Structure formats: C-alpha cells, structure tokens
C-alpha cells in the first residue's frame, strides 16, 4: 500500500518536471513572441497594419527558409557556417546561367541546387569521415566556396538575373511567394521530422549518436544527408534573395548565416543536438525579424539592433538552460 502510494507520488513529481520542461521547450519561445507583440502594440502599432505584416512575413521568409536547414543541422549536433558562401554562389549562378533569359531560370536553379548539394556533401564528409568539428569544417567550406566563386567570376559576376525571377516578389495581401515557400517547406519538414522514419533518425542521431549507431541507424548517411539538406535550404534562400533584389550582390544575405543559428537557438533547438524543432524556429525567426522591423519603425540606430539581438539570444538560452538543469 504505502509502496504504491509512494510510487504514485514520485511519478507525479517527475511528471510535473518533464511537463514543465516540455512546456518551456515547446512554448517558451511563443510566450516570448507574444510579449514582443504586446510591446510592439504599445510602441509601434503600425506593425499590425496588413502591409507591415506582409513585409515582415516576406522578409522573415528569407531568413526562415535557411533557418529550416540550420535547424536540421543543429538537430544532429552540427552547425553550418557555410550558408553565407552558398548565398553568394547561388546569386552568381543564377546570374551567370540565367543571364537575363527567363527560360534559363530552371537550369540556373538546378545548377545552384546541384552545387549546393556538393557543398553540403563536402561538409558532411568532413564531419563524418574526417571527424572535423562542424564549426571548423563548415568554416573551411565557407572560405572555400567564397574563394571558388571569386575565382570563377574573377571578381565580377557576369550576366543578369532573369527578370521572371521577380515572381518571388508577387504577393496577395499578406501571402507572398517566399512566405508560401517558407510555410510549405515548414509544413513538409515538420511532418518529415515528426512523422517519418527519416525524421526519427535525425533526432536519434542528434540525441545520442552511439545509441543510434547501435540501433542500426546509418548515422553517417543521416548526418551527411542533413548537411546536404542544410545547403539546399541555403540555396533556396539564396534564390529567393536573388529574386528579391534581382541583382547579383556579393554581400547578399550577409548576416543571415548567424541569424539562422540565432533563430534556431532562440526557438529552442539545442546546440548539443536532438532537441527542438521547426515550430520553435518559426517563432525564433519571427522574433528576430520583428525586432529589426521595429528598430526601423522606431527610427532607432541600427547598432541598437545588435545589442537587442544579442540580449534576446542570451535570454532565450538562459530560459532553456534554467528549465533543463537538474536539481
């Protein structure tokens, strides 16, 4: 009798703990987003105009798409710093292959995706086969990709971005092409992560690589595939960005690499892998984007944005850290 009673009591306290932890992990970032929106309602009501929402969502999509890939890579306890190089490479490829001709858009995109996959493969092989820490492997690839793009273009990307790529700037009220793409990719990959064997394996590899190996999961193949996916999402973001500016830009997407990590981390994806997911990242992306829009709406200096962004990252991880720390 007493034993049973004690057991149920123990179970209850364990129960509360993991439920609290899970609540913070799953919804903490949404609470933060809600608070941010309340602050915005007081300071910048303009944020809630349909036009503003449309702009915020479209800009968020550019970050959001690459953040999907970054989240996947973080889930297997990785990191991808090479995305910045991929943006530039994509922009150059679209201009060089596309060369102003709309019928060349598809070949241009395919070329960019193929090259992106190659970069991802390089990242994955370095991390799995040579056991290079992801930070260093993807940093090396970043320098390499930038250098290769530079060598190929000899400093000057030739060609033109085909005008039809401007389709990504189309929108119907709030729904723009990038937003649709972002939401669509999120829907697909939320399902992939939750409902498919592949998704399970991604989490398993990130959560405990040795256990995953002993469970018969081809861990190297999973990790390589995730790096390839990460690069492909970077290409997708690069294409949206290129269509956005319709111009080859050497600095295209600068800052989005670190922002994508920040978005995932703020969204609750753990740096050590296996924990978090895309729902959190969506909120992380929105927080970062709304903050930068508010800075413009308030007419604040850009430097303030850096400080706020840093504090938001720290605040979010502190929350997760405190919530997950055992007694």
């Amino acid at each position, binding site marked *: 009798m007493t034993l049973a009673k004690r057991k149920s009591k123990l179970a209850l306290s364990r129960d509360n703990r993991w439920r609290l932890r899970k609540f913070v992990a799953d919804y903490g970032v949404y609470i933060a987003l809600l608070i941010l929106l309340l602050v915005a309602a007081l300071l910048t009501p303009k944020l809630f105009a349909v036009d503003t929402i449309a702009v915020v969502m479209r800009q968020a999509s550019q970050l959001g798409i690459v953040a999907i890939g970054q989240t996947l890579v973080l889930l297997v306890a990785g990191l991808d710093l090479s995305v910045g190089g991929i943006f530039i490479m994509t922009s150059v490829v679209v201009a060089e292959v596309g060369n102003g001709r709309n019928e060349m858009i598809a070949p241009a995109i395919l070329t960019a995706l193929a090259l992106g996959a190659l970069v991802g493969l390089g990242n994955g092989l370095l991390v799995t086969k040579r056991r290079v820490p992801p930070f260093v492997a993807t940093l090396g690839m970043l320098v390499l990709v930038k250098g290769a793009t530079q060598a190929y273009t000899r400093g000057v990307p030739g060609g033109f971005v085909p005008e039809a790529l401007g389709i990504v700037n189309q929108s119907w009220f709030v729904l723009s092409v990038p937003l649709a793409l972002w939401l669509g990719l999120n829907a697909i990959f939320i399902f992939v992560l939750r409902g498919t064997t592949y998704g399970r394996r991604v989490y*398993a590899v990130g*959560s405990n690589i040795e256990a995953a190996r002993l469970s*018969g999961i081809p861990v190297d193949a999973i990790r390589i595939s995730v790096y390839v996916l990460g690069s492909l999402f970077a290409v997708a973001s690069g294409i949206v960005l290129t269509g956005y500016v319709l111009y080859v830009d050497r600095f295209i997407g600068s800052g989005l690499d670190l922002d994508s990590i920040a978005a995932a981390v703020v969204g609750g994806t753990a740096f050590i892998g296996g924990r978090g997911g895309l729902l959190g990242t969506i909120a992380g992306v929105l927080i970062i984007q709304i903050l930068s829009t508010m800075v413009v709406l308030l007419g604040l200096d850009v430097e303030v944005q850096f400080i706020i962004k840093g504090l938001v990252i720290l605040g979010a991880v502190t929350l997760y850290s405190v919530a997950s720390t055992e007694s």
Partner: protein
Amino acid sequence: MNEPILEMRGISKSFAGVQALKNVSFRCQAGLVYGLVGENGAGKSTLMKILAGAYKADAGEIIYKGMPRETASTGEIIDSGISIIYQELALVPQMSVAENIFLGREPRNRLGILDLGQLHARSNELLSRLGVALDTRLSVSELTIAQQQLVEIAKALSQDADLIVMDEPSAILAGSELDQLFDIIAALKAQGVTIVYISHRLEEVFRIADEVTVLKDGEVVDSRPISQLDRPTLVRLMVGRSLDEIFPQTDHEQGDLVLSAEDIETDTILDGVSLRLHAGEILGIAGMVGSGRTELARALFGADPLTHGEVRLVGKSLQWKTPSQAIRAGLVLVPEDRKSQGLFTALSVRINITIPILSRLSRLGIVRRPAEEGVVINAQQRLSIVMTSPEQETQYLSGGNQQKVVLAKWLETEPTVIILDEPTRGVDVGAKFEIYKLMRQLNDRGIAIIMISSELPEIIGMSDRILVMNDGRVAGELSRENADEERIIELATLGSAEAQLA
C-alpha cells in the same frame, strides 16, 4: 568508545524526483575498515559522492572530526583529509600519471610555480609504495585500465587522507594487484587511516572489513561488526531474499545451435574468440572490466568490424558488417552503458522504443502512428514500464524503467539472439527481479541470450553455461553445475594457462 571520525546523520537525496537516499546514517571510527555493501543502485555511490562534496544532500548533516561540516568545495574536502577512489575512474586522460596523481593539489615551489621535480619524484615514491613500476610521464590515455586504477589509488594516498573511500576497487583489479591492495589497506589501517570499502564481492568484505553497513533501496538495512555476520545473512540483508528466490528457475530444453563465432578478432583487444549458442539458452560471460567482454559483444553485433574469423547466425548463415544488418538478421545488443549507448534520453519513450523497427511500422517512410502506439502500449504492458505518458522523455524515468525501455526497444525487433551487456547495472532490486523473469520468459520462447555481467551471483544464478574472458581470450568455460565465484575469479584473473597450472 572513541569519538567517531565521521558521522553522517539522516542523509536524504533525490534526483529528478527519484529518492536515492532516505534518512541514511553512517559512522566511522578512526583506524577501522568499514565495508559498505549493497546492490547496484542501493545508494552507496551517492552517499559517498555526498561525502566528497560532489552532490549536496537534500537533508541531513555530516560531522567530521567532531565538527559539523558546512557545504564545502571538493577541493576543501580533499584538504580536510577525505579522499575517494571512484568506481568510474576519475582521471584526466590527456594528462600524465604524475599530473593526475597531484591534480588539484600540485606541489609548487616558493614562486608558486609547479615543481615538476617533486611532482614526479613524489609520484614515483607513491607508486613504488604500491609496488608498481610506471613511467610517471606517460599520459593516462596510454595506460591499461588496471594501471589507471593503481594511479587512482596512488592519487588517494598522495592526499595524506585520514579517511579513504574505495568504491569497488576490486572490479578491475586482479590477482596479485588485489593482494597488493589489501596489503596497502592493512598498512594504512595500521597508520590509523579509516577506510570505507565499497564492494559487492562478499569474500573481500569478510577478508578486510571490521564492520559492515548494508544499504538497500537507499536505506540502511543494518550495520554491525563483521564478527556477527555470515555470508547467507549478509546476502539476505543485501537483497532481501535468498538467491533462489531472486533468480527464477525454469526447466527448459536447450534447442538447436543458433549462433556461432569462430576465432574472431577485431582491432580491439579481442584475440581469437569462439563460442556457440543454442536456442533457449543463457550464456553468461564473465571477466574483469577490460577483459574483452564488451568488445566481444560489439564484435558479434557488427559494431566493430572483424579482422579475422566469422560470426554465423545459423539458419540465416550470413555475415554482417553493421549493426543494422545484425538487427535484421535477428541479433540485437543491449549495451552496457545505458545512458551513453542505449537510450535517447532527450527523446520520448515512444520514439525510443520504436527506433529500430521503424521500417516495419512505416509505409513509404511515413510512420503509421496507430501501429506505433500499439507497439508502445504493448511494450509497456509486457514489461510493466512505469511512465506517465508515451511522450515522457526517458531522462525523467527511473533507472529500472529506463532499462526496461531499452529492453522493450530490442524485444520489439523480435530477435532470435539477445546480447545483454550488464543488464541490471544501476537498477533497483524490484526491477532486477522483473528483468530476470523476463529473461526466463524469453528463454521459454526459444530466444537465446548472451549475458555479460560483473555480478557473479547474477552470472551464476542465471547462466546455463559461463564463458570467462581474460585479456581478449576465452580463459575457460564452466557449466552451471561446476560454476562458483572462486572458480570464475580464478579464471578471470589468471587466464586459462595459469589456471590449469594452479
């Protein structure tokens, strides 16, 4: 009566809602050897970690040398004269032997600079007191496990401790090394040093202890002088039942040969191991840590590639190179270290259990949720896993339930052979008993089991046959009838050739 050097009163401690220690009191007098015994998970190590300052007790007080001890850092506690030799070796692999021995208390010269001459001289002196010849400049990662254990002991000696806690030092020491250890303990005792000796090898306890304290399920069951105890009494105190009650017996017939390994070798320590396993049989594998037991399991499972020999799963007669091939062929491994190799602690029970059988539960790569939930409910009932929901993360389950989740995960693959590496480590007695029952049930269904264990009663109680490993080789095979602890230890420490000579 003398003043006790140490008195721990009413110590309680819980982890994530699991009570590890309940109102435990423990006292020691100077210059005596105390045996602290109890099954795995009884709370011995937790108690000692509280003593070491590595954990903070939830309740209770510690009086050391007549003074109530306030919370202190591990360094201050070491300085106060308490040193602990941990069960999991507490050495920094990248540092040298000498640096490890004096880690945290490095000798310095007047300028505050590390005195390397002294560091090595004193280390050598300590090691020679242990009768060990070891280059103090070698880094610890280059030592064998037994050598590392000796370094640990040297480290404790270096601390000029008044109280030394040894947490299962004998688990990895063998023969002459063990005799040396007992000599050292005797010498220390003569110098007035108090020793707390944690072990579940009872003969050792009877050999050296003056007083024995028994912990069970986080509570002190009894504490009395060794002279008032005999073996059966002590066993009953530890486990609460007699051995016959713990290890369920069934009559089952040995079936056909299902698994055979011929002269297998890997890049690890394994050196030409052969074995045969029949349906419905439990083959126990005993041996010291580092004898190649775990490596054998990994080799059979395809986790480490074979460099020589072959493994055959009879009936399928195929060779595998990866765990996934082994799993598909019907052979699974429940690894030794649950947390680092078996469990996805951050993931839910549901995901943990279904990971190896996802392809069966999915169509076109999409998991069929109802089928999956069915599996989880089935597993929960079969193994009576205590959890609040299939979505609960496994890190919030108790050790026993975690182990059941790992077992459930592998049982769902419907294997013909299961390798269990230390299946009851860190599991409470109740869960242990359930695991034994489960093993018998599996046997009855014709499933063959290889069980690796450090716990000799478990090996002897459960196995139909016992292979004893030593230095990567099979040192001997014992049948159930002629197996006893002495015989196994002899084989495990001396190896077959020496054992025959002896």
